[in-house]
């Protein structure tokens, strides 16, 4: 590690340390380490971040509603994690590459993923929604933690090929218990890979509180793997933007990986199939409602004399558009062709699969002939 990292390691993983630029009341606090990283964020930029968060929250609400209406098979809500996802995704360069889990809808949105692309998987019509190379975002990962290794491998290749782009891996608090994630730390550190580990600690792994996974702030895990770990208020979009920019920048400069623990909260169920009442009380939620990521930015904007009528109107208009697009999208998702079940298993011809495909085509044809049994 470079001395600067060592410093970083010492500084940034001091337990209890939580980077916060904007407190729940919306008051801006100076932070010599990280203010420079958001010096360019003026009122307009703040309004954009506000709009982004309002839009993705609305998208999330709409998608949840679509699931309730039976239009989607399942939906994992991001409610409460808007700042963590918008702040970190806004910090990325277009060419950086995202390896996410299943809950990063806001990240996908900022990567330009379209409503149809966002919903098809959850509707069950496609195994993935978009071309990873177009959006610079990999197929979202359901196997907990597996994508962290993919991000590291991508980053190792970036370093070997001398490309200055960075990989960012999103995963949850629960994922930190999986071997893959820890092995990803080992490889990233060993190869000084330009990768940022962005852990959204939303307090829960389905019904399991983060305390079951670790008795230590998760950010503290990083130091032992030779990289800086930093804890940030995950509901403070400005702080998230700052620390992610810091981590991306040092990775870009060849200083290797960093780990970010964004402390946030999953306000909704794990997925629409989950019933949080079985494992947490409304009081748990109340405390976090006080720390709403959108409200505090709204307060800051108001305090900084922005034209709030315009800010709100703009956000609402954008959210309405997005919501309308989403609802429209659902009706535009055709069911897949039966025989497409065989597509893309292999990139090259495969005699065994061809035979099964032929046989199944004949099977379906029999029905046309004789009419369904």
């Amino acid at each position, binding site marked *: 590690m470079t001395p600067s990292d060592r410093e970083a390691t010492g500084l940034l993983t001091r337990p209890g340390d939580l980077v916060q630029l904007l407190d729940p009341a919306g008051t801006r606090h100076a932070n010599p380490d990280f203010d420079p990283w958001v010096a360019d964020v003026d009122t307009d930029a703040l309004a954009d971040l506000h709009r982004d968060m309002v839009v993705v929250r609305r998208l999330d609400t709409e998608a949840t509603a679509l699931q309730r209406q039976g239009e989607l098979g399942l939906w994992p809500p991001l409610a409460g994690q808007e700042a963590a996802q918008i702040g970190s995704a806004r910090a990325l360069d277009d060419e950086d590459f995202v390896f996410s889990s*299943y809950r990063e809808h806001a990240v996908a949105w900022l990567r330009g993923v379209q409503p149809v692309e966002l919903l098809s998987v959850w509707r069950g019509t496609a195994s993935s929604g978009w071309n990873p190379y177009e959006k610079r975002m990999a197929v979202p990962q*359901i196997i907990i933690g597996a994508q962290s290794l993919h991000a590291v491998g991508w980053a190792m290749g970036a370093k070997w090929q001398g490309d200055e782009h960075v990989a960012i891996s999103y995963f949850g608090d629960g994922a930190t*218990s*999986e071997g893959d994630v820890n092995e990803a730390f080992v490889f990233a550190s060993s190869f000084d890979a330009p990768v940022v580990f962005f852990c959204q600690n939303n307090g829960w*792994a389905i019904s399991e509180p983060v305390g079951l996974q670790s008795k230590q702030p998760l950010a503290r895990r990083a130091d032992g793997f030779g990289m800086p770990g930093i804890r940030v208020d995950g509901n403070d979009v400005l702080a998230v933007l700052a620390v992610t920019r810091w981590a991306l920048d040092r990775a870009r400069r060849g200083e290797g990986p960093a780990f970010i623990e964004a402390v946030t909260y999953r306000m909704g169920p794990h997925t629409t199939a989950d019933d949080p009442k*079985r494992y947490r009380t409304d009081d748990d939620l109340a405390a976090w409602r006080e720390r709403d990521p959108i409200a505090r930015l709204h307060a800051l904007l108001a305090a900084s004399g922005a034209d709030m009528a315009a800010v709100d109107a703009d956000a609402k208009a954008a959210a309405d558009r997005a919501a309308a697009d989403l609802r429209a999208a659902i009706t535009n998702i055709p069911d*897949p062709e039966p025989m497409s079940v065989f597509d893309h*298993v292999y990139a090259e011809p495969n005699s065994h699969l061809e035979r099964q495909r032929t046989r199944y085509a004949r099977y379906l044809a029999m029905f046309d002939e004789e009419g369904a049994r």
Partner: protein
Amino acid sequence: MTALTLGKAINEGLRRSLADDDTVVLMGEDIGTLGGVFRITDGLKAEFGAERVVDTPLSEAGILGTAVGLAYRGFRPVVEIQFDGFVYPGFDQIVAQVAKLHYRSRGNVKMPMVIRIPFGGGIGAAEHHSESPEAYFTHTAGLRVVACSNPADAYVMIRQAIASDDPVVFLEPKRRYHVKGEVDLDANLADARPMGVATVVASGRDVTLVTYGALVQTARDAATAAAEEGVSIEVVDLRSLAPVDYSTIEASVRRTGRLVVAHEAGEQGGVGAEIAASMTERCFEYLEAAPVRVTGHDIPYPPAKLEQHHLPDLDRILDGVDRAMGRPNSLSDMSGVEA
């Protein structure tokens, strides 16, 4: 007799085992406070405490590896893998440790572990939530593999699996969790049919149809449908996938001379291949036609809207029966087709 769903029957079987034997401990993700994502362990943590029904950190290798350590000191760990597609991170602990430790320790260390896996598709789930990994386990020496298909069996078999001194992979047909059936909660293990023995669930003369798990019901429905067409199908619920109860199947095939094996897992190297090969070895001269396999395609599990084109259903099973009977079917004149 009590009417219970298959899921509830397993829950009662686990409760009974926890009550009967202090060394039984349940481990898994979300099995305690939540009662499991399918609620199979519902109420058990409240009843037996957090050290008998253990919510673990999110790590399959961790769950299985610590279960091995617990077995080392005499516990009978019952591990829940949340969904079939999540067992692979723990594969090494299963194949290299759980399955081999009794052999490696020359019989000194027993691994009386049960690995519960809700398996199979048909619930419109997302990827990795509908897999049928059984063949990976039936090919692994040292493991026993069983699959239940109805509430009565589920209640007895889970207790038999827990009582077994060998490690048992216990496959639960998740899409049948809510199907009800009569269960004798006082069923006495001693009198119960051993989990290694298959059951003829419908007798017939013309074809022997072997399957397990969720497809047993589909096979019975197929038998009913075929009866109307004058074809008499004998349906065998395999129950034990390793070892397979060949005597029961053999007795049936010697009478019918025709065999169809059905499962959701892919064809290539699936359980059906083993049964077809073994039955051909055992009663070649009794076979009137080649054993037929009706299986899922050899593809990754498809998106939900396509699963009905992947999973064997009543019609595909009947197509297989037609083939076994030498009637027109989807494989007719495939001989022409390359490969």
